[in-house]
């Protein structure tokens, strides 16, 4: 009897510490040579492939390159865990991972830590790709990763209700959007209680995306091109205030402070929401008559801004080559293969991923299947990346902290952004 509690205590305590025991080795700081050399087997490290199309693409590559086969290493389906596994691999300088599938916001961290190598721009089809997506792969002007897919926010709207209220086109500014909503509520009896607008306002990465979009749309920015924080400006305040005031006057429902993509999607598909800021993936489910009450009754447009079209925040993934890998020349060929128009076209048609190749957005086959592609192209062309900072994890937490406090009214916009500026200055030193 006596031993059981003590053993339990000890085991529990060990778990607490073991969970945090992941140490790191200090590096020797050697600069890797710029030339990418060596051919042979490589690995491709990516999050869980839910599409089922990836293996097919790799099989195609392997049949054409029997001496330089690519093996997929699938990590977790959670972005946090993928990042951690890639970092751990880099910290022990293992050559197990060759090509890394990075979220766009990790580029700066991986580049600044020398975990990935600089890529030769002249040996990649950079000019075929949408410029803003390529920019997410750069750190201080140098290219470390190439985009393979992209993502940008779109404004989903109920064209049937707008038409009933006598509005024939999607709003391009915030004031048009809120006025359109008031008109719909006043004139369309079936939509008296509809919620005007929602985005992703829960305290997570989605809030960083939505808050930076609001700030960018008013001509402000979170950090400038050089990575210096610029969030304590009248423009940034005006931008965030659009959302803060909409929460206050009810144009955004109070409950939207808990919204993630999925909660907003349920509302929009259920016909409870007039305007929704959402990624392209909602298009398929909203058009599905089984799942959605608004199939055929909605359309998409670029996001609204303060004085004209807004600025979306970019999502998507970039491929990079691990600094500790062998066979980097093969890896570079593989990047060329994965960014090629044919592979991306197949990916776009089969799984609906937004390509980084610009021409595909006007490709008749792709547009026939995904009618929103032209709007998405405009959105991506006008989009901005999230802050390119090494400590992205801390920066995004700070942005969420400030935006959340401003939106739920516990701090004024002025105070929240002033504090954010101070915090970002320490974080980007």
């Amino acid at each position, binding site marked *: 009897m006596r031993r059981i509690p003590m053993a339990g205590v000890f085991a*529990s305590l060990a778990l607490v510490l073991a969970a*945090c*025991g992941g140490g790191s080795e200090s590096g020797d700081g050697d600069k890797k040579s710029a030339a990418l050399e060596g051919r042979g087997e490589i690995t491709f490290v990516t999050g869980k492939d839910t599409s089922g199309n990836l293996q097919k693409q790799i099989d195609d590559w392997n049949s054409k390159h029997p001496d330089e086969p690519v093996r997929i290493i699938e990590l977790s389906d959670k972005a946090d865990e993928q990042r951690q596994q890639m970092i751990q691999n880099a910290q022990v300088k293992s050559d197990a991972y060759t090509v890394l599938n990075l979220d766009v916001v990790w580029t700066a961290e991986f580049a600044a830590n020398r975990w990935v190598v600089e890529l030769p721009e002249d040996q990649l089809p950079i000019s075929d790709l949408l410029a803003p997506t390529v920019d997410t792969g750069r750190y201080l002007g140098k290219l470390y990763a190439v985009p393979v897919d992209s993502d940008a926010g779109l404004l989903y709207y109920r064209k049937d209700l707008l038409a009933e209220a006598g509005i024939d086109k999607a709003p391009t500014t915030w004031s048009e959007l809120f006025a359109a909503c008031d008109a719909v509520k006043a004139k369309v009896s079936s939509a008296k209680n509809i919620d005007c607008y929602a985005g992703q306002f829960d305290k997570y990465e989605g809030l960083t995306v939505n808050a930076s979009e609001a700030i960018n749309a008013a001509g402000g920015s979170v950090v400038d091109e050089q990575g210096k924080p610029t969030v304590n400006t009248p423009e940034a305040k005006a931008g965030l205030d659009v959302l803060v005031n909409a929460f206050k006057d009810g144009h955004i429902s*109070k409950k939207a402070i808990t919204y993630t993509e999925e909660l907003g999607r349920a509302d929009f598909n259920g016909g409870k929401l007039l305007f929704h800021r959402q990624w392209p993936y909602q298009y398929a489910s909203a058009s599905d008559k089984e799942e959605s009450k608004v199939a055929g009754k909605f359309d998409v447009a670029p996001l609204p801004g303060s004085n004209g079209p807004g600025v979306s925040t970019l999502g998507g993934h970039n491929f990079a080559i691990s600094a500790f890998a062998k066979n980097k020349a093969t890896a570079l060929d593989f990047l060329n293969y994965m960014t090629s128009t044919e592979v991306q076209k197949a990916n776009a048609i089969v799984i609906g991923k937004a390509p980084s190749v610009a021409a595909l957005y006007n490709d008749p086959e792709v547009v026939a299947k995904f009618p929103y592609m032209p709007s998405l192209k405009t959105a991506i062309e006008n989009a901005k990346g999230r802050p390119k900072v090494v400590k992205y994890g801390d920066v995004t937490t700070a942005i969420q902290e400030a935006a959340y406090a401003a939106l739920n009214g516990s701090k004024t916009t002025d105070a929240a952004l002033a504090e954010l500026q101070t915090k970002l200055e320490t974080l980007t030193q």
Partner: protein
Amino acid sequence: MAIPIPPVNTPAKPARKGQDAKSTRRFALLLLSPTFLVLALVVGYPVLAGIRQSLYAQAEGLDADGFVIEGERFVGLENYTALFTGERGSAFWNAFFNTTFFTATAVVLETIIGVILALIMHQALRGRGLVRASILVPWAVPTAMSGLLWRWIFQPDGVANAILNQEILWTADGWQSKLAVIIAEVWKTSPFIGLLALAGLQMIPQDVYEAAKVDGASPWQQFRRITLPLIKPALAVAVLFRMLDTLRMFDLPFVLIGGNKDSVETLSMLAWDEANNLRYGVATAYATILFLYIALLAYAFIKIAGADVIGEARARKASVKKGAAA
């Protein structure tokens, strides 16, 4: 574990008794050494490595080309002293309060509900198996899953608001999210206490109650004077386990409410957050503090609530020794 092994093929001779006892002990140690080795590897090493890590800090800052300055340096107790002051200090004390608050409220509620569940499971005559199985269902659900389930329940247009006919934003930062975590935690873990308390109940011989009835004890008196004292050893172990578990609570608030929300941030979540941002030194400092805090509370709990258990065991051991010596 420490049962003395009788030496094989060596009949005990009174003259060599002392020597025998010594070699017996040595033999026992030899037999136990693999266990100690495994314990040292899986428990001792991670603990020590964690504590060592907490004395180091990652180099911070970028060089002129924008690259991270690499390397770790020894900072002594700096990671610890920084925890208690400034911005990190307010995050720490907030998390410390949350951890303690969750543990105190959840474990008290779990114990009360758990004992009631045990009494029901013990009493239920018809459909006994069904009642027991259904009470244990929440315990069988993985915590992350139950976090997701409760997240649906606590959505703005979820079941909880529909029943209450309110629009409470349970998963937004605020007092209501604390309540949501406690409700989900109590729902999930009361059956555990119930199960162990039931085991205690089944050990109580029925004739004790019959005797009490003959003496005219009311049901409440029977519960206070017979049931509670007799299930106390089992209950103490159950409560201790729940306490240790709740103190390092992570997954439930993380899944149900989300990370970085002050109202539900626990010490484990803070440590995770720091580790996620590659500050392993600070993360292990948080974990070490939590380790010490848990050790302290566990020790205090065993001293106060489990005193009898240990006392009995000691007394038994002492009497065994005496018997052996005689």
